[in-house]
């Protein structure tokens, strides 16, 4: 019985080498675990313990991470794991057949077929991830997984030519990244902007009415002013590139097209708020984009673009890249910060907000990729140019994506303030032949189900009558072959899987709602189930963070606008 486990000594050669490679702060644990998972021993208790003691953090912290992030908790070694996207777009594009096909091929092989939440490859659905490779348009007629992988087109990286009506502002520069021409674009505008001082940047953002484009729409100038106004020896600029929401591929597109834009935006942000350290948190499933950003950072650094002389003072800015490991919740800014600090991505209660107590409890500006790119483009082309792009009372552009039953699905940049009908008909090429519009899911997984009556409603951040919440700018168009309850169930499966599990309404509510929807769809539902859906929806609005509180949006809009579809299942 007697046991006195002494503190283990970190001495595993692999672990120590990885610590050397990825750094000694707990922030690196996530990368170390990813690397170790692919070694023979995997994430065994011994290895978990070694990592914990190598980083001087509790064993439960490392263990808790290993079972939290889906790239760590699921699948075997990545070379024998195929992660199939089960996001709503892929589901609509035949993910179920692909799944069955792959499972069949995997029989009696070492392969593991793992369902994975939206991979951010909606433009090439049905999509998959094999190691670092992003795969799209998976077929169902291969004779082996090897053949399937060999024959599958990798996701296209080049930005398609502009479609009719497209207004490129963020995406205006010819596709530029270090892999293609190796040269950072002309940086003069950065110097010009900085010479005018931080207040000029803040004024510009205010005049342009820039809003956060991660989905929440918080006024950007306000956030930047708050961070700029705080006295602190160290501040951080964190770019949220954890784009993991179904229907959202805009950040990936921006990074694929013009990674310099993002870094320019971070540099301006750092200069304006008084931070010298920038960190990009990119989702683990975006490895090609992560590499692209790394080489972009290298290029910027070696060209001296991160060190600038502004007036008489030197401004030097460091940018680091940090990879996630599969967790939608890390797109929530406080969860992202927790993850950056080497823990489970569990959102923090707010207040305090990251602007005052963010990364390592220091003032931190967290902005989405698209927001930072917008700021950079605005600084380059000027306010006048930006304000020229105007619809009704709204300036500037937005990166949209239209998927589903339209003729010309995909990503494009267009003015803000367009109506649903315009986006579907003018940009999405209208509904597919012989398709009848049934509903659209607008704004992402956390968006709303809308019906034909809302065809002429504008997409915007405001919640006023006659508008549809813009969210991430993604739109899923469904014809009558697709039901709202089924799509809602796909969304709930996503939320259930991606809930961090910390607060009661989200942890239990997402699970219970998904169970009810399953019951309804299998014909076992009852009237009280419908009532229960509403109650749980109410309860979810009490959640700790935005993941839980956004579930009622699709749920309630579905129940409100498509009630007959639910009742017909009883």
């Amino acid at each position, binding site marked *: *019985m*007697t*046991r*006195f*486990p*002494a*503190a283990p*000594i970190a001495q595993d050669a692999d672990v120590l080498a990885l610590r050397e490679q990825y750094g000694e702060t707990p922030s690196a644990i996530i990368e170390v675990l990813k690397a170790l998972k692919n070694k023979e021993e995997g994430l065994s*208790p011994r290895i*978990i*313990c070694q990592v914990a003691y190598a980083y001087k953090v*509790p*064993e*439960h*912290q*490392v*263990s*808790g991470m290993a*079972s*939290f992030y889906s790239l760590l*908790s699921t699948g075997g070694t990545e070379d024998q794991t195929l992660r199939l996207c089960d996001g709503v777009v892929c589901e609509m594009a035949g993910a179920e057949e692909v799944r069955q096909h792959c499972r069949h091929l995997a029989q009696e092989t070492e392969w593991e077929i793992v369902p994975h939440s939206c991979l951010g490859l909606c433009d090439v659905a049905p999509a998959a991830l094999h190691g670092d490779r992003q795969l799209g348009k998976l077929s169902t007629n291969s004779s082996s997984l090897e053949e399937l992988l060999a024959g599958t087109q990798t996701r296209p990286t080049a930005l398609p030519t502009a479609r009719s009506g497209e207004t490129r502002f963020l995406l205006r520069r010819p596709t530029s990244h270090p892999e293609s021409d190796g040269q950072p674009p002309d940086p003069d505008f950065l110097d010009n902007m900085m010479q005018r001082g931080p207040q000029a940047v803040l004024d510009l953002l205010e005049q342009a009415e820039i809003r956060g484009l991660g989905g929440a729409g918080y006024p950007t100038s306000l956030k930047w002013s708050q961070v700029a106004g705080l006295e602190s020896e160290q501040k951080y600029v964190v770019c949220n590139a954890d784009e993991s929401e179904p229907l959202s591929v805009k950040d990936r597109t921006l990074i694929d097209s013009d990674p310099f834009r993002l870094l320019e935006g971070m540099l301006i942000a750092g200069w304006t708020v008084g931070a010298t350290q920038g960190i990009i948190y990119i989702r683990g499933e975006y490895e090609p984009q992560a590499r692209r950003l790394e080489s972009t950072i290298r290029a910027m650094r070696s060209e001296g673009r991160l060190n600038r002389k502004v007036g008489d003072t030197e401004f030097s800015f460091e940018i680091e890249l940090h990879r996630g490991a599969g*967790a939608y*919740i890390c797109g929530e800014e406080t969860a992202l910060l927790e993850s950056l600090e080497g823990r*489970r991505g*569990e959102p923090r*209660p*707010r*207040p305090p907000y990251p602007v005052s107590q963010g990364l390592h409890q220091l003032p931190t500006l967290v902005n989405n990729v698209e927001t930072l790119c917008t700021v950079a483009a605005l600084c380059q082309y000027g306010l006048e140019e930006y304000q020229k792009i105007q619809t009704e009372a709204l300036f500037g552009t937005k990166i949209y994506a239209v998927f589903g039953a339209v003729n010309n699905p995909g990503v494009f940049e267009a003015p803000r303030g367009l109506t649903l009908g315009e986006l579907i008909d003018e940009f999405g090429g209208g509904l597919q032949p012989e398709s009848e519009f049934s509903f659209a899911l607008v704004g992402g997984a956390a968006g709303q189900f809308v019906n034909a009556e809302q065809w002429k409603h504008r997409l915007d951040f405001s919640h006023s009558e006659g508008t549809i919440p813009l969210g991430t700018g993604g739109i899923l168009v469904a014809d009558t072959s697709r039901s709202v309850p089924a799509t809602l169930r796909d969304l709930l499966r996503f939320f*259930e*899987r*991606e*809930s*961090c*599990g*910390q*607060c*009661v*309404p989200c*942890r*239990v*509510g*997402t*699970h*219970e709602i998904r169970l009810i929807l399953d019951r309804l769809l299998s014909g076992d539902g009852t009237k009280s189930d419908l009532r229960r859906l509403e*109650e*749980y929806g*109410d*309860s979810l*609005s*009490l*959640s*700790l963070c935005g993941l839980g*509180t956004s579930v009622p949006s699709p749920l309630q809009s579905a129940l409100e606008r498509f009630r007959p579809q639910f009742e017909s299942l009883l």
Partner: protein
Amino acid sequence: MTITSLTINQIEVSVQPGQTILEAAEATGVEIPTLCHHRDLTPVGACRLCLVEVSGRNTPVAACTEPVTDNMKVCTESESLTRHRRLLLEMMLSEGTFSETLETGQPETELARWVRHYQATPPTSAETPLRFPVDSDPNPFIRVNMNECIRCTRCVRACDEIQGRFVWGVAERGHETHIIAGDDTDLLDARCESCGACVDYCPTNALTNRMSPPDLAVDRSVQTTCAYCGVGCQLNLDVSQEKIVGVSSVDSEVSVNDRALCVKGRYGFDFIHHADRLTSPRVRRELLEDRQRPAETPRGEWVDVDWETALRIVVQKMNAIRTESGSDALGFFSSAKCSNEENYLVQKLARQVFGTHNVDHCARLCHSSTVAGLAAAFGSGAMSNSMDDIAHSAEALFVIGSNTTEQHPVFGTMLRQAVHQRNVPLIVADPRRIDLTEFATLHLRQKPGTDVALINGLMYLILEQSAEENSFIENRCENYEAFRETVRQYPPERVSEITGIPEADLRAAAGILSQCKPAAVIWAMGITQHTTGVMNVMSLANLQMLLGNMGVPGGGVNPLRGQNNVQGACDLGALPNVFPGYQQVADATMREKFQKAWQLSAASAPLFGEIPGLTVTEIVDGLGTKKLRGLYILGENPVMSDPNVNHVRDCLTTAEFLVLQEIFPSETSHYADVLLPGTTFAERTGTFTNTDRRIQLFHQAIAPLPGTRPDWEIIQEIARLALKSQQRNPEGPYADWRYKSPDDIMAEIAALTPQYAGVNYERLKAGERLQWPVKNEDHPGTPILHVGEFTRGKGRFHALDHLPPQEHPDEEYPFVMTTGRVIYHWHGGEMTRRSAGLAAVCDAPLVEISPEDAQRLGIGNGDSIRIRSRRGLLEANAAVTERVSPGLLFGNFHFPGTHNVNNLTIDALDPTAKIPEYKVCAVRIE
């Protein structure tokens, strides 16, 4: 200071800005339901039960995390909130099966209370198979049933933020989220210390105490002071049908420990009702038959007798020895486990009634070198600062020779948290890789017995960096020049050679001490139990004077006292050279003071002599040489705890008459002639003085077991009977022995002991924090000593040179054995080996051996090994561990007979303090 005004349920409230709505509501007397929240823990806002409505906000906010703002209007109860809360509770209930939480009686769990309050109904689908095994962990103290868990993470936070052991964690996510220990292993494997904090904070019955199941009806809880170590934690003894059935945390804020307890404090209580308890006085048959036992022959059989007979025999024999051979043929061992009042009585019994200063106790074996060393340097030999002060204010911690997290566990957790939450640099100097080294900025792994060289070496480097505090040295200290000359003989290369510590580490440590002021120096037996014990202590005093770290919050010299009342036993004069309050026997005025106070009739001659008496080790030797004939022992166990116990056994066999007042038949009782059954701390009242000089009450929770008597009553009875048969009557103002209760004794103590002058039971019962000196009834006590001036005036530097330990490893005995304790046991183990859980979790004597040595000798973990020194043999189990370096072994003295490491230890003494060198002897493995 600005104040935030708001209304809660239309009541106007003004609170400090930054408070949460929940805190404001609590201050107003408005209760908001909570589950994941606890005031001691970081709020997480996870259960959402504390949602309240705030005007202007669309959705309710969590009161536990939302700060108040001016003019905020808060509503804590509404129909919609009730509906929300009911559903939230039902959601929690849907995640498991809560039969134990909801169906077991009083006191109701927090979850059960809110479920009842909001009339939440468990889901009908609860017949689903259990998600987790019931009783899933083999921990002997903590029962785990995760089916009753609501994932509030209070256990996780309690372990992280209170205990600092980081055992519990959260696994997976979403609906699969659950609580795990370590990397999903069992608690002990995850390095759980079984402190029970997680159980204490659990709002359901997912975590419960095995020894006190939740369905046990507790009749009352009595707040008292823990009787294990010197930290002096406050705890509740839970009583059911006049039995102690559990220990719980005290719910009000307690300055020593808040709700924290250690494994012994929380779970080591069942010895109280152990079947071995002595419940009748016993005497040897030959005494009843009035036969003389021939010397060196074994004692006869025990006979149970009534109290009158036992006490008559004791008094007759002791009076006879006094008359025949003089007072100094008697010796008295008082007890650091007994109360201040009892210690006072024992030394009064020795000095007044029997006329000898031969009274001592086990402080001789633990901190006599501290008392002597600090008295020489500062004039007063106790911990200068307070535990909370160190935890909150120290800028650096230097722990040398103290395994704090195992020996003073609750203070150990405070140190861990100082490191964890305040980033205080911690330097640990210890030959072993003790638990604290894991939290340390630096671990200096010195060779045993090289502390003077180490400390001199650090001071050399501090001087080199000119980090000495010159104004402090000039104004408050003396003898600096001579000291500095000596320190200059200790350059790092020499010190590294002597101590085995790399030069770079010495420099780093000196750098921390130079830059982070004040540093608190903390030590225990690793410093004191050496032949150079006094020098070691004086070296640490030198260091703190050099750095100017004395008399300030967060600094000081902080010897951690081992036994619960070792401080008090010293304070009350259970020492051969001092009366209560360290009033010197050698000082004629003091002798006169006590002569007058304790005056007896027919005593024209002085009550006692002019020369200090003998120490513990000298008394034992004296019994062996027949210089002494009789020994009275109150609650000590020298056969377990003295060094070289074979020698002790020989001496006690020879002893003519030995009285032992005890709760159990101990190892020492084999050598006793009379056994007097005393009581445990649960059965009587008194005060203990803890390590930071705090005088605290312990309260009687149950009546003394039948046949036993409170120890102070026994001593009083012996004194009365002895005086009567000596035909002497009390005449001095404090000569009498008519105490009705312990507070009468405290009144006498206060009258005669300047440090305790202002102490009385009234103040203690009112909850006053009294740390001596308490100079009068209006004096608030002294949390920090030596502020502005040292007790002796100027602090004295001592020039000290390194001296090697007495015994060196050689070819015949190639290992160094060092000794100490383990967290689960207490000293000789008389109490803890009789506590079922503690005995189960640590059931065998262990000797730590390095993996290198174990491999070389072919010893596996758990193997039985025999270890021999020049004095004896130890049989133990090998614990192969990196905690010790090659060439070093570590053993404990918790198990009796040949399993006791004190069969090996050497009785070489420090020349001044007479403390034995427990920490170093040479041994071989057979």
